């Protein structure tokens, strides 16, 4: 993107950070996210003309907030006039109270974004709609932008957003003055939604890997860590997303080939993101609570350190995997643990762990990573024919062209 020379346009771009804050603050009063977004759109439209004509204001966010609030008030007033609901005047007072229009410093405005995030991850909202809602409400993205990032049809995104926003408004999920305890109990859903948006497996088998929503997920994870700094898992999530994103450029070679983690060049990892991930992980320890995301981030960092230094602390990785299996058992986690076990105690033990898993979970026979690992362990044991069969099975279950090419090397 080129730097804009137009001061009005520059001010508009700089004000984007404040959009989520403005929507959160206005929607907090009555839970009507769509209404708050409309109000912000009105303010933005007016800003285009007003800022061009008179120059941008000293405090663009404050200006936008004031105009958006006025637009929203007009709607409330006319609704009150139609239905003579006394509540609406109360609503207006609630968010008007205490803010002096003379200095609308957005940092001085109450920050309701955590409440807004919690509303987006409300149990009554369909899980697939939750990340869409966050991107729309907290980041001000349009349905078109979200559709492009998530590789979904625009019509689908619009329909899901409309339904979800109606749902929130209909529930009367006013999130202006939530119980602090209630908010804390909702945090896991917030974390899960942000992680889901990041880790989404692309619905299509694209020839090229898509950046998808990595930038957005990074932003949301930083935001949530900033909004609840004392929560270990908020930093764990931020650490995990930053460390994973750091390796993104190294997943494909220059000519588009798939590169597994162990073969990646550490100098192709993004140093800034790695450092940010390490910083958040240090915060996890300072908070004294290590949960699922903190453990997964620690596992990733140990792997990365091992590749960088040429010596991996496998026993420590095994301990972390054992802890993870306690906190958040998963098929992927169990297969990774079998891989670590093979490094610590030898390939036979890893294979035995994999067999034990297969006996417990019928889903394992359709789980591609389990077949990749089986092929790898059989190769190490010199059982070449069985290894080739396992690799073929992994290949049958792989749809990504680059990964297929990687797996098919050496197979006849």
């Amino acid at each position: 993107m080129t730097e804009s020379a137009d001061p009005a346009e520059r001010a508009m771009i700089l004000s984007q950070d404040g959009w989520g804050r403005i929507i959160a603050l206005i929607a907090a009063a009555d839970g009507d996210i769509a209404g708050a977004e409309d109000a912000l759109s009105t303010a933005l439209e007016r800003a285009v003309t007003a800022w061009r004509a008179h120059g941008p204001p000293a405090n663009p966010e404050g200006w936008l907030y004031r105009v958006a609030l006025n637009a929203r008030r007009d709607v409330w007033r006319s609704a009150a006039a139609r239905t003579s609901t006394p509540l609406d005047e109360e609503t207006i007072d609630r968010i008007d109270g205490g803010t002096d229009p003379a200095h609308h410093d957005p940092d001085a405005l109450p920050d309701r974004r955590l409440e807004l995030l919690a509303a987006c991850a409300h149990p009554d909202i369909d899980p697939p709609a939750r990340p869409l809602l966050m991107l729309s409400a907290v980041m001000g993205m349009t349905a078109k932008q979200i559709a492009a990032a998530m590789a979904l049809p625009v019509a689908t995104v619009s329909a899901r957003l409309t339904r979800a926003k109606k749902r929130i408004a209909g529930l009367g999920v006013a999130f202006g003055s939530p119980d602090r305890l209630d908010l804390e109990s909702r945090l896991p859903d917030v974390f899960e939604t942000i992680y889901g948006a990041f880790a989404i497996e692309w619905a299509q088998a694209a020839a090229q890997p898509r950046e998808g929503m990595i930038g957005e997920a990074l932003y949301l994870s930083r935001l949530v860590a900033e909004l609840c700094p004392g929560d270990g898992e908020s930093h764990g999530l931020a650490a995990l997303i930053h460390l994973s994103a750091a390796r993104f450029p190294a997943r494909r070679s220059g000519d588009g080939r798939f590169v597994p983690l162990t073969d990646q060049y550490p100098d192709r990892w993004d140093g800034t993101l790695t450092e940010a991930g390490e910083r958040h992980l240090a915060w996890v320890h300072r908070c004294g609570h290590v949960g699922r995301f903190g453990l997964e981030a620690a596992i990733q960092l140990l792997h990365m350190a091992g590749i960088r230094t040429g010596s991996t602390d496998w026993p420590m990785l095994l301990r972390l995997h054992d802890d993870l299996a306690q906190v958040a058992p998963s098929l992927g986690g169990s297969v990774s643990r079998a891989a670590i076990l093979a490094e610590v105690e030898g390939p036979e033990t890893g294979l035995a762990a994999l067999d034990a898993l297969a006996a417990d979970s019928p889903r394992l026979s359709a789980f591609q990573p389990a077949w990749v690992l089986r092929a790898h362990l059989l190769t190490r044991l010199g059982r070449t024919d069985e290894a080739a069969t396992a690799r073929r099975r992994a290949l049958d279950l792989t749809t990504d062209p680059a990964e297929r090419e990687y797996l098919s090397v050496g197979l006849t």
Partner: protein
Amino acid sequence: MRYSLIFHAPEPGADGPAPTEEDFQEMMRLMDDFGQALTSAGVFVAWEMLAPHSETKTVTRRTGEVVIEDGPFAAAKEALAGIVVIDVPDIEAALAWAEKFPGTSYGTIEVRPAATSFVDGTWTRPGDEPTRPGDCPSRPDGS
């Protein structure tokens, strides 16, 4: 083993906002990615996306004579919209591909094994197909 991925989706003009030209382009791009991936994986057999019901004719001789009609104009909201035929070892592999079908964001995919297929002028049953060299009939885990 051949599997048909049978795609049902709302007919154009059914309820919901009509997709824009841009939506069409985006979906075409996703569908193209899917087709390229099927081809590069060597599992592709055929793929037809079908014109709407309004351009359909039905032919029957159930009454003894040939009757050709417009339609069918079923009242169902969703209609057959396309068929992708792939050749993969089993249902698990077929499902792995079906999951990636871009159209599932607005329709549904039915995955059905072929009972018998007419290939190169002759009927082929799944068991008749040549297995790949080195293919082991049983899996290492015995399942």
